[in-house]
């Protein structure tokens, strides 16, 4: 059984093929309108996330498939004390593929051990979020024409931001990529990831102010400082406004910069930036629908097939 738990379950070649398919679906959605008729996607959200859940459901519905599931654990039998693995065993009898989000890290691996159908990790705590990474990669490739030699600035909560962790892992596989890590000391990238970059000889620098580095960036990836990741409310209040992108700051950047954000934003990007042609975060949302269509299509087609994936 093949699953997508971590972006590194996919080879660079497989990601390329997924992005090719996603871009084709973006250009010619009518060709795929009935391609998954009769198939069922279950969206199991043990932690609410309207945006990610809707993107998966939209992707499946756009291909003529059906969806079922629950938007939060209180509307599932988890509220009665059922274990994750029992829920998965049950639901996998009702569907062809599962997209799940869970607040605990590693939950999709535990789920994959008992599932009869492929599992897509739609986010597990602060750990991984591979479909957001596929969305980000599709956006970068569409906007910049490729990945090689790009300088990526990652800004905000780099400690708990799972989208950042997955993106660093994925982008580190392309030659010539450099990272600029813009974060307060409290929210720096975890040590295991900076160690990983050092081991692979990938250049990175850690800075505290975005103004100093903006002119050098190809991509500025902004993140939200999330209240739910803090144990202490005072720390959250102190840090949440530290990194806000405004038109004044954006004026320091080159024309080639693209500003991305996994959304939802709170106030880290001023709405005045939205109409700047360099702001592509709403295109990112659109791309997320098509790359998920591509992923669902491939995973259903290759279930038990020859392509790489997380094996258990």
């Amino acid at each position: 059984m093949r699953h997508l738990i971590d972006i590194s379950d996919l080879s660079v070649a497989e990601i390329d093929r997924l992005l090719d398919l996603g871009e084709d679906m973006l250009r010619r959605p009518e060709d795929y309108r009935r391609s998954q008729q009769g198939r069922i996607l279950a969206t199991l959200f043990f932690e609410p996330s309207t945006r990610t859940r809707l993107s998966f459901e939209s992707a499946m519905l756009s291909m003529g498939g059906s969806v079922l599931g629950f938007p939060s654990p209180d509307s599932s039998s988890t509220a009665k004390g059922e274990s994750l693995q029992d829920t998965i065993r049950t639901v996998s009898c009702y569907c062809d593929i599962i997209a799940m989000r869970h607040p605990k890290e590693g939950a999709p691996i535990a789920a994959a051990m008992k599932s009869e159908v492929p599992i897509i990790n739609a986010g597990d705590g602060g750990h991984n979020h591979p479909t957001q990474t596929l969305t980000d990669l599709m956006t970068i490739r569409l906007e910049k024409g490729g990945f090689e030699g790009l300088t990526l600035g990652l800004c905000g909560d780099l400690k708990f931001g799972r989208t950042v962790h997955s993106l660093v892992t994925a982008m580190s596989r392309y030659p010539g990529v450099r990272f600029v890590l813009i974060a307060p000391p409290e929210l720096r990238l975890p040590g295991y990831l900076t160690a990983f970059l050092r081991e692979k000889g990938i250049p990175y620098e850690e800075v505290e102010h975005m103004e100093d580095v903006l002119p050098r960036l190809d991509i500025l990836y902004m993140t939200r400082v999330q209240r739910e990741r803090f144990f202490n409310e005072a720390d959250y209040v102190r840090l949440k406004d530290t990194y806000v992108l405004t038109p004044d700051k954006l004026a320091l950047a080159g024309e080639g910069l693209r500003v991305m954000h996994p959304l939802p934003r709170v106030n880290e990007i001023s709405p005045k930036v939205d109409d700047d042609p360099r702001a592509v975060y709403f295109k990112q949302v659109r791309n997320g629908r098509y790359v998920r269509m591509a992923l669902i299509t491939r995973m259903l087609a290759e279930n038990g097939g020859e392509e790489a994936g997380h094996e258990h």
Partner: protein
Amino acid sequence: MNIDSIRRGIVLDHIQAGRSMEIYRALGLEELPCSVAIIRNVKSNAMGKKDIIKIDDDIDIDLDVLGYIDPGITVNIIVDGVITEKKHLALPRRLVNMGRCRNPRCITTQEANLDQVFVLADPARKIYRCLYCDAEQRGTDAP
């Protein structure tokens, strides 16, 4: 006591001096009905001092536990009074249910029936990571 005194059993040799009691407990040797000898601070050319454990029965040893505690240990299998096999240990690639993941956000803290599985990430530094959450394991409860 010497090896010749065992007809059929196991001798754990080249234990780092002072660690034999830890191994005695980790392998559950106190529960064995057979005789078990712990010999401490034996002179060794290679190690200066070492500990040895002799077990007077042919039991199943958990080589993963042993390899994790001290990969330098040699396991000698004795049959009819002679060494028939010498096993050299390595750090196990996976550890199952030896310690608990220390990450409070890990699924293993919530899902009761999951095995605790740790995967060897860096043999040189003896670092294991949780199979589920990737957290590096450190501290006394960790493997």
